[in-house]
């Protein structure tokens, strides 16, 4: 009809669209009805997120976001940062890091480490969230649990310094053989398998948190999976946990230390891995703290937000494959690359991410040596970036390897924006300076891990975050026996230094060993340190006292408070 009489079709289209308008109104009525029904349904499911307000002065509470659902709050098995953040608020162990990042008392009021034993004296007023006292038996149970082969705890190896721990974890001895004893409920005596001067620094790790046996057994395998399936020893308890949506923390009335837990509530109101969405929640005054990405920085500056920076303690580096059949095994080849790459250029001109520092050493700047930072006591060596020298090393390598031309070099990397920029920069610089052709092998997480373990690379972009506050958490990485030594670097000198660092009892001797490890890594070009990662973030002006940590809860609200006058 439209095609036959165009003049007529104008008027008919109008009347017909009026007809359509009636349908449209009906559709709206239908949608509104549907919305009401769905509203009821959603309400019935009990999955509603807590009402969020960045800073709520009347109720002394704040809201924040988590980047992912904490997957494992069973401290004997936990490994990830998100669970670590929550556990840092709701649990407390023997010792903890204080506001100045020094090791301090927690449930243990004092402690002593000798070459054969470590002894912890527990405070009498430390209580679980149900009011019962926390005793040495709770630690013994938790540590035995982590070592049981059936538990399958990934971090069980952190307990290996305790006598018989390794044999128990291998199923060769019963858990009762573990070198722990409690002469009285407030004293825990640890018999060490070998001298370990820094055993006290280890016990800060979540694997060492206490678990009470009767409660654990009553959860019947669901320990830590829900708010009521966990017994708390820290300043907060989980009041309400909606999986994938929100987690509400409330002050633990039985907690002993009145200097922590000043906020009545910490409401993790949103769980999302999207940084832009998190920032939108911050702008909407729903949350009190949000991380900033490079692309949000200009806006943050324009809005005059106070921007804060923090080095999160993780070091990133390029690893070489030292396996026999790889040309990256050649020292002069590695030196050629070492003399070509200017990490200051990478950090300040290429990635340009705020808070990042050019890498100079495997040991990041925050690690403490004997008294001062380790890097002040043992400064890292550096090379001058020199194209001619780099070329000379490459020619030497070519001669030694008997190559006519260099084949394509494979660089294994993750698939994310930061890695992409870096690997393209590497590709370009190495092409320009050395004439090398780099093939970038981008892989997603698990596939990259598989290739890292099987050694399917020449160069690898890797990194390491600390587990405990001692240089050894980085220092033993390139031991020939360490499975995280993905390039399979193997040197007797290095192994001997690492053994000293592990077992020497005097701190100066250990720190000297770390200084030597740092030098050996440099001389032998085992790896090339690239950068230390930084984080920038914004905090609501009325929220004070938020502590950022390198180890444990990366964001610590346990000392935070609201300042209404700010």
């Amino acid at each position, binding site marked *: *009809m*439209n095609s036959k009489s165009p003049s007529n079709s104008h008027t*008919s289209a109008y*009347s*017909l669209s009026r*007809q*359509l308008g009636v349908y*449209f109104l009906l*559709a709206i009525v*239908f949608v509104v009805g*549907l*919305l*009401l029904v*769905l*509203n009821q*349904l*959603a*309400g019935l*499911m009990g*999955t*509603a*997120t807590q009402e*969020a307000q960045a800073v709520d002065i009347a109720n002394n509470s704040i809201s924040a*976001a988590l980047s992912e659902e904490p*997957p494992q709050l*069973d401290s004997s098995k936990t*490994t990830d940062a998100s669970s670590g953040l929550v556990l840092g608020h709701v649990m407390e162990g023997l010792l903890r890091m204080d506001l100045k990042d020094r090791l301090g008392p927690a449930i243990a009021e004092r402690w002593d480490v000798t070459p054969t034993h470590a002894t912890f004296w527990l405070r009498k007023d430390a209580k679980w969230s149900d009011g019962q006292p926390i005793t040495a038996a709770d630690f013994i149970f938790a540590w035995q649990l982590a070592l049981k*082969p*059936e538990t*399958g*705890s*990934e971090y069980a*190896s952190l307990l290996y310094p305790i006598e018989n721990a390794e044999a128990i*974890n291998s199923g060769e001895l019963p858990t009762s053989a573990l070198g722990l004893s409690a002469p009285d409920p407030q004293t825990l005596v640890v018999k060490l398998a070998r001298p370990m001067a820094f055993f006290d620094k280890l016990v800060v790790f979540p694997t060492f948190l206490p678990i009470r046996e009767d409660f654990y057994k009553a959860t019947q*395998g669901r320990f830590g*999976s829900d708010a009521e399936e966990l017994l708390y020893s820290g300043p907060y308890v989980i009041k309400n946990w*909606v*999986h*994938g*949506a929100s987690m509400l923390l409330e002050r633990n009335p039985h907690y002993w230390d009145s200097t922590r837990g000043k906020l009545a509530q910490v409401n993790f109101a*949103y*769980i*999302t*891995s999207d940084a*832009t*969405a998190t920032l*939108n*929640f911050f*702008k*909407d005054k*729903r949350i009190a703290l949000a991380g900033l990405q490079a692309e949000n920085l200009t806006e943050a500056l324009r809005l005059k937000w106070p921007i804060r920076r923090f080095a999160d303690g993780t070091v990133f580096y390029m690893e070489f494959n030292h396996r026999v059949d790889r040309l990256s095994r050649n020292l002069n080849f590695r030196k050629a690359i070492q003399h070509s790459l200017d990490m200051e250029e990478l950090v300040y001109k290429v990635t340009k991410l705020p808070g990042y520092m050019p890498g100079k050493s495997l040991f990041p700047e925050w690690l403490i040596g004997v008294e001062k930072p380790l890097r002040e006591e043992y400064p890292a060596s550096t090379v001058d970036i020199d194209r001619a020298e780099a070329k000379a090393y490459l020619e030497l390598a070519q001669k030694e390897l008997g190559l006519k031309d260099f084949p394509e070099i494979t660089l294994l990397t993750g698939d994310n924006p930061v890695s992409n920029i870096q690997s393209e920069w590497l590709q370009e610089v190495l092409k320009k300076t050395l004439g090398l052709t780099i093939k970038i092998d981008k892989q*997603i997480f*698990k*596939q*990259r*891990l*598989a290739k890292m*373990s099987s050694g399917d690379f020449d160069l690898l972009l890797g990194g390491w975050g600390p*587990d405990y506050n001692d240089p050894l958490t980085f220092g033993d990485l390139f031991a020939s026996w360490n*499975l995280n030594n993905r390039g399979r670097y193997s040197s007797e000198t290095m192994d001997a230094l690492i053994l000293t660092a592990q077992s020497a009892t005097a701190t100066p001797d250990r720190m000297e060993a770390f200084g030597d490890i740092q030098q050996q890594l440099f001389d032998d070009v085992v790896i090339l340190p690239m950068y230390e990662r930084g984080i920038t973030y914004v905090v609501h002006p009325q929220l004070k006292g938020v502590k950022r940590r390198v180890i444990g809860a990366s964001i610590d609200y346990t000392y935070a408070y609201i300042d209404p006058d700010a």
Partner: protein
Amino acid sequence: MLRYTLKRLALGILTVWFIATATFFGMHAVPGDPLSSDKSTTAKIRANLEAKYGLDKPLLTQYAIYLKNISQGDFGISFTQENRQVNDIIKEHFPISAILGILAIVFAALGGILWGALTALYRNRWPDSVIMFLVILGISVPSFVIAAISQMFLVNINAFAGTTILPVGGWGTVWHMIVPAMVLGLSTMAYLTRLMRSSMLEIVNTDYIRTAQSKGLPKTRIFSRHQLRNAILPVITVLGPAIAGITTGGFVVEIVFAIPGLGRYFVEAIQQLDYTVIMGTTVFYGAFLVFMVILVDLLYGWIDPRVRINP
């Protein structure tokens, strides 16, 4: 009809079995495994973990155990959230995705039909051009862009109003659903608009419309009873897969608006190679898709007698 239904259901079960089998072997063929992580564990600890999850057994044995378990409706425990049953994850999070999906599909279907009919009425005139331009945008702009833009828009509206007009994210009330559902349904709506438009234009030239016109029926009656009703048929055909696609494909919207739906778990499980969650969600979604397709086919026969199959 009953025999046809039963036959379709039997074929559906076979399809689900095939999906389960293909996913199982495909997943195990992917390099990497659920137990690997940034930090390597010792050989002993790895062996403990493998024994715990039965990964130390031969693949075919694992497959047999697995089939036996899912036939009893047990998907096992998650690798990443060790203390949670995959069944619980689906039970808790699918209803949320479903509610969001229903709303999105209603937006998409109603919008698609209305805009499609409107563009057909105003063919080659300005309402047609404007809507078709928006349709192309809706189809080609990826949902994470639209999600981010609409969220930013909400932040600005709230800031401008000085109070919360609509929440920027979260879940629980109808106000949390509207914008995410629109974003989620947008590309389907755009697709349906195009489909509806071409289907309307095709029908204008059919014999029965001409018959109706020559009978002298009023235009509005021809439009609503003959043209619109017949034009909707192809739209209904694609609705089945679209419903499944929307309810399962919401992970971007779920992450941006911090909605605790199942889509997130589905995608994260694949990244983490969380075998049990991958299998659980894939089989569940597969069964859901198959069921929706069967349902639409049966519905189609009911709406359009021409396609009804004789027993």
